């Protein structure tokens, strides 16, 4: 990691150069409460002071809601070819917990088998991180995700009169050299950065007791009464999955065009909350109950990948709490598991 500082006066020009030289994706205000990460053509569209983004930016770009994987021609002979599409993009203004969500997906999509569709997009994505204001439902410090130490090219922290920049890749360093003027960060810059980080961490109000979850979860797992209470209002709608920066479940479907010759395999996001998630041919459903599906989601988010990768598959962004129509609150539920067991 290299550390540089950039003056306020040159920052705007830096962003403008990026917008004119790259396919640039950044936060744009969608309505009063929500921003969305969309292609930006002019700096006036960009609003880096965002708080809420419903669909996580990285997931949307790297793992789109529907994506062609394979194309084929069905004639006398059948020709099959992979579809791996990607282009260089700048993702600007993504916050620390969403970068950590992306880091999780990185690890996931290259483990066991390498998913080229994801990996190609990821390699070509220039990630420039910036902090954003946490929402009231954000508990990312509990999940060790409020700070990103990897997964970006540049991370820009806004100090009072200048920007403190962490440079994580050679690519990031080159971009900075090409499009801006920076100086090496000195002791006073680090001091101000530390002060900033102290204040930044104080903005997160929600605390979740995740440490004891690992064992307690197994005890509470068979407590049907507890899970009936938790899942009572669940509509099995899957909103929590759509809004999650780390959810990756998908379906693969084969389609054929109207000419009956050109076909393709497409993947589309799926949700482990939907009743048909565990349905197999012949009609047997391995997960017919919503209680069961919800607790399996908690296991996937909070335990499975602690065993596999040594990290949670939850970054504590709080989006699932905000989007849940039934007001199911994962943070409350984690805490209440501890309470339930301690009584």
């Amino acid at each position: 990691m290299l550390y540089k500082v950039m003056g306020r006066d040159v920052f705007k020009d830096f962003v403008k150069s990026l917008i004119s030289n790259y396919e640039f994706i950044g936060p744009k205000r969608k309505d009063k409460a929500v921003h969305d990460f969309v292609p930006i053509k002019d700096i006036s569209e960009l609003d880096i002071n965002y708080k809420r983004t419903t669909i996580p930016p990285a997931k949307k770009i790297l793992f789109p809601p529907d994506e062609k994987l394979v194309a084929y021609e069905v004639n006398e002979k059948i020709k099959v070819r992979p579809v791996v599409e990607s282009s260089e993009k700048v993702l600007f203004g993504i916050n620390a917990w969403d970068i950590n969500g992306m880091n999780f997906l990185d690890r996931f999509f290259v483990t066991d088998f390498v998913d080229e569709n994801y990996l190609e997009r990821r390699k070509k994505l220039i990630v420039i991180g910036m902090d954003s204001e946490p929402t009231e439902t954000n508990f990312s410090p509990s999940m060790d995700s409020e700070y990103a130490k990897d997964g970006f090219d540049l991370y820009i922290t806004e100090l009072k009169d200048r920007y403190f920049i962490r440079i994580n890749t050679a690519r990031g360093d080159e971009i900075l050299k090409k499009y801006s003027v920076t100086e090496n960060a000195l002791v006073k810059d680090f001091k101000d950065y530390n002060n900033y980080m102290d204040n930044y961490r104080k903005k997160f109000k929600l605390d979740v007791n995740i440490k004891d979850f690992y064992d307690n979860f197994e005890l509470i797992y068979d407590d049907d009464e507890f899970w009936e209470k938790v899942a009572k209002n669940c509509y099995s709608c899957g909103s929590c999955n759509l809004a999650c920066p780390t959810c990756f479940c998908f379906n693969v479907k084969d389609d054929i065009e109207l000419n009956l010759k050109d076909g393709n395999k497409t993947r589309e996001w799926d949700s482990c909350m939907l009743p048909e998630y565990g349905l197999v041919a012949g009609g047997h459903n391995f997960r017919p109950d919503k209680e069961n599906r919800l607790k399996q989601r908690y296991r996937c988010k909070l335990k499975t990948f602690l065993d596999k990768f040594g990290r949670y598959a939850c970054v504590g962004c709080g989006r699932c709490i905000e989007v849940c129509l039934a007001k199911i609150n994962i943070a409350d539920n984690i805490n209440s598991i501890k309470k339930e067991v301690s009584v």
Partner: protein
Amino acid sequence: MTLNVKYNNKSNKSSIYVPELARINKIQQISPTEKLFDIVFEDDKNQNNFNFEPGQFVELTVFGLGEAPFSICSNPENKDFFQLCIRDIGNVSGALHRMKEGSKIGIRGPYGNGYFPYEKMRNHNIILIAGGLGLAPLMSLVKYILHHREDYKEVMIIYGAVNPENILFKDDIQYFSSRNDISICVTVDNPDAEWTGEVGVCTKLIPRVDFPVEDTCAVVCGPPVMYKFVIIELEKKNYSSEKVFLSLERRMECGVGKCNHCHIGDKLVCVDGPVFSLWQIKNLKEAI
């Protein structure tokens, strides 16, 4: 960005989702609802490189319609083709049943790091317990064992079918019966007038097995409802939970550990299974 990618699937293919072209060489109707398909890759190189372990499965594409996982039921030592026994029950299997010999399909695989541990099972007595279509994945193991018969002690198959006409692999069963180094016991739930064999569920035959505890392995495959009852019977026999192996079914969309539909606890049936030891299953809530 530091992406430390270790490539496990070292092939020239640039996507794990691309199937290889294959041909249905032969179709046999082996029961009112099941057909046996002989499959050969179009490219000889793919056929020569296709080495599978008993218990593994493939993802089969019917172009333009869909993809589904199927366990391989032929002898792994047969390098000329492989076989799938498929019930006409879903979108893909239904389409396959309508296909003719010579039709082209797509194959990915073989998949499943958890297969029947035939090496660990050497010098053991083997009980194979199958219910219905569950016989298909076990056939691959039976044929492997018969191919290397001297490596194993006593071999016994317990097979339960709904009714006599639903009995699968009748030719093979007849052949097994003619050999004196393998015993097979078939039971049906609903016998017809001509049926002279056992009647009832396959679990009731387990108590009759008298293989010694210390050197016996059991393998199980059948419909979801069967496992619980089979395990109860096997536990009465005190077989080690590390010597009982069960092949599980789950919904799969990818076969390569990405779509997550087949997860049970922290395991994925496609990459960690589909065969698990009873010890693993005891540690996986909801596995059975």
